[in-house]
């Protein structure tokens, strides 16, 4: 048994356990409050409010809406957030009677997106309007996917482009082409290195955690709202811990027990 293990328990990872426990405790607390009828306030996020206008514009112009759920696998947290947002977005599109094209790089994401969009069209009372062929797998290769999605933008001329999820080097190629076609573009990613490209080419960009807030904001789903509230108060705790840590680490340097408690081995 390792020195840091007590009865098979990794004491060196106690800090991780505590963070997870506090976070899930907060989620459970807010969920319990939601179920008892508590209403939570979430500040307005301009990029999310713009989604409604962008969808209205596409409907008025009679042109499709393009949704790209990132380029990562389904288990990536940003892809999960993106697919969660796709649900309410597809539901609104179904109500307005516009067309939705989803361009996917990962086959499994396409399958999940098809299920989500199909469900959304049913929720909107228009299951017959769902077009399975509009949820497309382009290619597993990053730049082939970018080339294929650019082709969709140039030929089918979507009036609105959504880039929600994790993106890498293809982000600028996609958003720049969308800009040339004159589409309203809204992007959301927590991939810090790609945010600058979206900021310069898109009409609205949701920064980092706003991507995760968007799914809760749009769906008003109690579980997601509770998670968002829990994340908010975890941030407050994190700010407090960082400030305490800065003071103690400045005083005791490497001998600081508070700082060392966070070391994960």
């Amino acid at each position: 048994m390792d020195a840091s293990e007590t009865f098979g328990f990794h004491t060196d990872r106690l800090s991780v356990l505590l963070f997870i426990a506090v976070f899930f405790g907060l989620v459970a607390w807010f969920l319990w409050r939601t179920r008892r009828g508590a209403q939570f306030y979430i500040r307005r996020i301009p990029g999310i409010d713009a989604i409604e206008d962008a969808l209205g514009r596409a409907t008025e112009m009679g042109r499709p809406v393009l949704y790209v759920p990132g380029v990562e696998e389904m288990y990536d947290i940003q892809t999960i957030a993106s697919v969660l947002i796709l649900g309410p977005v597809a539901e609104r599109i179904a109500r307005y009677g516009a067309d939705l094209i989803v361009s996917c790089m990962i086959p499994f994401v396409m399958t999940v997106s098809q299920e989500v969009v199909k469900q959304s069209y049913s929720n909107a009372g228009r299951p017959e309007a769902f077009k399975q062929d509009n949820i497309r797998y382009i290619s597993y290769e990053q730049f082939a996917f970018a080339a294929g999605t650019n082709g969709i933008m140039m030929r089918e001329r979507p009036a609105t482009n959504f880039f929600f999820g994790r993106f890498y080097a293809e982000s600028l190629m996609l958003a720049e082409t969308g800009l040339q076609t004159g589409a309203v573009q809204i992007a959301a990613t927590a991939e810090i290195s790609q945010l600058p490209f979206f900021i310069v080419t898109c009409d609205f960009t949701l920064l980092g955690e706003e991507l995760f807030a968007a799914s809760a904001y749009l769906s008003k789903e109690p579980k997601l709202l509770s998670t968002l509230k829990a994340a908010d108060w975890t941030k407050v705790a994190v700010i407090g811990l960082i400030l305490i840590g800065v003071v103690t680490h400045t005083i005791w340097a490497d001998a600081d027990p508070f700082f060392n408690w966070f070391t994960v081995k």
Partner: protein
Amino acid sequence: MSTAEIVGTWLAAFFTLAILSFLYKDNPLYKFAEHVFVGVSAGYQLVRQTFDVAWPNLLQPLWGGLHRDVDTLKAHPQWAFYSIPLAFGLLMFARLWKPIAHLSRWPMSYIVGAFAGTSIIGAASADLVIQVQSSMVNLRGTGPWTLIDNPFSLALSTFGLVCALIYFFFSKEHKGALGVVARIGVYFMMVSFGGSFGFTVMGRLSLAVGRAQSLLVRTPLNPHAPWPALVGVVVVTALIVIWERKISPPSAGEG
């Protein structure tokens, strides 16, 4: 150099220029290159996933186990359990037959749920605890003062971090003092995005220069340079001009 390599070099030059023709406008040459690119990558991935993933990790152990292959039984004594992922994989194809299409949701739910569960520990450790610890800086610095490692820079980065974190607080309207702090957080982020943008643009330019060099500079891999690129420019330009004339023929009064 083999004939295949020579043909490959010429094709690489042609397809590079065909893709670059998109800078002018969408045209049949770009569409051709795009479809070849997408098709070849789809075929390549199918072969790769089959022979590098499905065969060694799933099909081979099952096949060897069923045929009582000694090596397989030694390497995979629990080979029969592989029938579970095989069944889940096959359930994905249930989508193709409407009466049982709903069964395809089982493997999807399993994958999303399992990965979300297993990634919690890694995410909490790497994205939270370690980040929090890294943010607890020693304001006196850790050695001789440098541009980054000095009390002013360290205090400024801590201040920027706190302001940026406050920007991502969604439970209160960003008004008054909170609004001011959040706005300062946005300024900090924008400065960092600007730096990141410039850095990446430099990287992209260096990629473009590398591609141009590979087409124009004579190397063992491209012994005929710059001819493939020059011929490619002529061919691509000629084809685009022909296409332009075809879609917009000169009016009767012209010529």
